[in-house]
């Protein structure tokens, strides 16, 4: 506890100045301090940077002492520490001890082969984490949809969706299905084959009568259209009469009138 070098600690951006050793450091301050870090690597990088040390030449003994001091202070104050912090302390202490140990001939042999520095793995991890940390800052500065800009979505005026398009053949198909179904169902509905032209003339006559309500029989015939037209049109009038869609009347002057039923 008394080993904390408070000059490294900043609370709310204010550097903590040297305090008397007996002054109580509130646990909350240390907790806030710890929460600044994303993990042990982050804390280590902080310690290295605060002293303008070269990451490639970490004075491992010095860094280990500082790190362990923080960790012990947190533990003394019963601040819950993630296990990663403790693991890192163990790693640091192990590296430190290996560096401080006098080299035996056998370890010298091994070292001369690959120039093994026990710090190397830690340095690699620190470099990789530092890269990602800075990359994330750069990435965070790239404009993000919803945070830094909005997609443009200009209103489209409400409108009816395009109605379905059909082809004449679609009607034929529909009729087929209708026929087949009625046969399959063995219903009594017999769909008589009938000249479409007669039906068309029936519709035309009804359309004329819808306008006029009542029409002289002869006016329903366009005599310029030829004999087959006249026959079909005549059958159409009779059919309309038979089906009760029109009434055919004779007036006192023997004129034939066709009325809408």
């Amino acid at each position, binding site marked *: 506890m008394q080993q904390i070098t408070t000059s490294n600690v900043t609370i709310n951006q204010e550097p903590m100045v040297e305090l008397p050793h007996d002054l109580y450091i509130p646990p909350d301050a240390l907790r806030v301090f710890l929460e600044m870090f994303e993990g042990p690597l982050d804390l280590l990088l902080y310690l290295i940077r605060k002293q303008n040390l070269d990451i490639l030449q970490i004075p491992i003994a010095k860094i280990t002492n500082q790190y362990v001091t923080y960790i012990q202070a947190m533990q003394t104050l019963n601040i819950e520490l993630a296990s990663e912090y403790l693991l890192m302390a163990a790693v640091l202490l192990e590296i430190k001890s290996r560096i401080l140990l006098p080299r035996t001939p056998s370890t010298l042999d091994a070292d001369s082969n690959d120039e093994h520095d026990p710090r190397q793995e830690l340095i690699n991890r620190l470099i990789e984490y530092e890269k990602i940390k800075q990359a994330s800052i750069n990435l965070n500065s790239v404009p993000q949809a919803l945070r830094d800009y*909005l*997609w*443009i*979505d*200009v*209103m*489209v*005026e409400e*409108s009816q*969706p*395009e*109605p*379905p*398009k*059909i*082809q*004449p*053949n*679609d*009607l*034929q*198909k*529909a*009729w*087929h*299905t*209708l*026929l*087949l*179904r*009625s*046969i399959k*169902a063995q*219903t009594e*509905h017999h*769909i008589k*084959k*009938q000249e*479409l*032209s007669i*039906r*068309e003339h*029936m*519709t035309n006559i*009804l*359309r004329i*009568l*819808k306008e006029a309500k009542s029409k002289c029989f002869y006016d329903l015939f366009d005599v310029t259209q030829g004999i087959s037209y006249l026959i079909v049109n005549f059958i159409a009038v009779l059919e309309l009469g038979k*089906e*009760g*869609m*029109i*009434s055919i009347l004779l007036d006192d002057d023997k004129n034939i009138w066709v009325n*809408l*039923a």
Partner: protein
Amino acid sequence: MSNFSYIKQVIEACLLSANDIIDLEQLHHIFDGQVSYESLRDIIEEIKNDYQFKGIELIKVASGYRFRSKPEFQSYINKLYNTKPARYSRAVMETLSIIAYRQPVTRGDIESIRGVTINSNIVQTLFDRGWIEVIGHKQLPGKPELLATTNKFLDDLGLETLEQLPPLPNIEDSFSSQKEQDLIEEYDTQKELNNE
């Protein structure tokens, strides 16, 4: 960039990114009241002119301003989404074919041919499309309406007269053919937009 041009760009960005109608009050607020209502109105007028020959336009509505796509380009925008064309349901197609081939017919006729009661939505769909009309009433109790196809129906199908409709199939032929059977199944399974 002049102050005016900057304000104009800000207003443009706000109006275009808003999925809503924006009023002068709101625009006044975003500049902390530092831009007069008169200037705001002038700038909006300028923006309106800027978009005269663009695909969208700025319109004034009762509660403020908003951009919209020009209605004349509507069909293209629809096309972006409608990769699959809309289709009529089997019920609509059968009803239409009965009216087309057997006109004039009553709803009762349609029911008796299809063997099911008719849903008024189906006939309404065809009325709405302008493809059928009432051309009279049958002399029967209740005076049922007589339905027939219209000229618009012929126009939309690219026909001059009803006689140009494909001829009605012969029952015996169509019944025996497997192809027809397949047709029906295809028809049955197709996604139906207008359900009965």
